[in-house]
C-alpha cells in the first residue's frame, strides 16, 4: 500500500443493445490503455442494470457506452437513472456510436456529458477524458 501510488483513471466500456460490432469499442479501449487508463470491459449485449452493477463494483470514474443499434434513447437514460438511484451519480457518463444528432439533447438531459458520434478520432476522446480527469483530480485533492 505505497503512498506514492499512481492513480490512473478507471473507465468501464460497455455495449448496450443487441448488436455485436466490437471494432469501434476495441479501438477506443486500446487508445485509452495507451493513454495510461484502466479500461474494464463488460462484454456484449449488456442491459443497463448489468452495466450499472459493474460500474459500481469496479468503482470506475467514467462509464462509456457504445450503442450501434436503436434503443439508446431508452437504454442510456435508464443507465443514468440506475447509477443515480444507487448513489453512483459521481461517475462521468459518455456515449459513442451511431447516435443521431436529434437525440443528443435528450441524452445530455439524462446526464451524458459528451456523445462521440461515428468517426470521432480516438485522440479527441483521450484529450477530453484527460482534461476532465485533470480538473476532477484537482478538485478532489483540494477538498480532502
Amino acid at each position, binding site marked *: 500500500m505505497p503512498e506514492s501510488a499512481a492513480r490512473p483513471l478507471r473507465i468501464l466500456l460497455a455495449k448496450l443493445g443487441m448488436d455485436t460490432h466490437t471494432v469501434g469499442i476495441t479501438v477506443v479501449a486500446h487508445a485509452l490503455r495507451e493513454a495510461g487508463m484502466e479500461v474494464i470491459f463488460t462484454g456484449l449485449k449488456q442491459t443497463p442494470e448489468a452495466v450499472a452493477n459493474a460500474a459500481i463494483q*469496479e468503482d470506475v470514474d467514467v462509464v462509456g457506452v457504445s450503442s450501434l443499434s436503436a434503443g439508446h434513447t431508452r437504454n442510456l437514460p435508464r443507465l443514468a437513472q440506475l447509477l443515480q438511484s444507487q448513489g453512483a451519480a459521481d461517475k462521468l457518463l459518455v456515449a459513442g456510436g451511431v447516435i443521431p444528432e436529434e437525440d443528443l439533447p435528450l441524452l445530455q438531459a439524462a446526464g451524458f456529458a459528451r456523445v462521440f458520434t461515428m468517426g470521432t478520432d480516438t485522440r479527441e476522446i483521450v484529450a477530453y477524458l484527460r482534461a476532465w480527469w485533470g480538473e476532477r483530480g484537482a478538485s478532489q485533492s483540494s477538498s480532502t
Partner: protein
Amino acid sequence: MDVAAQLLAGSVAAGARAIRWLDDGDARGREVLRAIFPATGRAHVVGVTGPPGAGKSTLVDMLIAHERRRGRRVAVLAIDPTSPFSGGAILGDRVRMSRHALDAGVFIRSLGTRGARGGLSRSTYDATLVLDAMGYDLVMVETVGVGQEEMDIVRLAHSTIIVAVPGLGDEVQAMKAGLLEAGEILVLNKADREGFEQTWRHLELLLHLRGGGRAAGGWAARLLPAVATRNEGAGAIVAALDEHRRYLEDSGEFERQCGRRSEQQFLALARAALMADLLSGPGAELLRQVRARRLDPYTAAEQLSAQLRAGRTPH
C-alpha cells in the same frame, strides 16, 4: 456512516470504494482497513492460476454458478497485467462472468497489476480483507496468466487451484518447477480436447513424484478434469475445496495461514515505513555517499546498523 461502517453493513458501493482507495494508495484506505480488520478472517480465499489461455476466467465463472446454487456469496478479484509502458490496462475477465452481473450475491472486481510482479496486484491482499469483511463466503483471486516462479498467490490464498490444459506439454514442463509443487487442486480444463490422456498421465506422474500420498495427515493434491465451457467438473472441484478448507481448519492451519498473511503484510509495511524514516534521517548522508560511490554499499549498511544500535536508548 463512514465507508467502513457502510461496507460492514453490506454496501457494495462502499466496499468498491474502499478497494479503489487501497489500490490507489489513498490514505483513507488505511483508515478503512483499521476499522474492518477485526471483522476479517472468515472467508475462504481461493487462488486460481495457470498459463494464459488455460480458461481461468471460464472456470471461475463455472465455480461461481455452482457456489451460488448452494447459496454461498462469492467475490472475485480478477487480475490482468498493466502495460509497463503506458501504465494503462485492458481488464476483460468480467466478460466471461457476465451471466452473474445481476446477482446480488456476486461481486466481481478487475484489478491491474500496476507494476507488481508475481501475478497479483499490490492491493490484492487488502482487497481480500475488504471482501472478507463484507461477508463473502468465498473470495476467488484469478491471477494473470503465469508460468513458472510466480508463487505470490500460494502465499496469499488458503487454497490454490492450478489450471492446466491438454497439449501444453512445454508449459507443463515449465510449470512443474514452481506452481505444480504448490497448488492443492490441479484442474485439467478443456478435458474434451485432444491430448487429454497424455497430459493427464503426465500430471498424475508429477503429483506422484511430488508425494501424492504424503506423510500421514498431510494434504494430498487432487487432480480433477473439467470442461468449464460446458459447466462440467464444478461439483468435484468445489467438493475438493470444501475438503481442503476442512483440512486447514482441523489442522489449525486456517488460523495460522491468516496469521502468516497478516505477518507478511505487517513486515512489508514496517519495512517500507522504517526505510522511509531511515533514509530521510540517519541514513540520508550514507545514501548520498553510496550514490556518489564514495562509500561501498556493504560498509554503508554496517555503519547504518551500528549507528542505530549506538543510538538506542536503554530502558
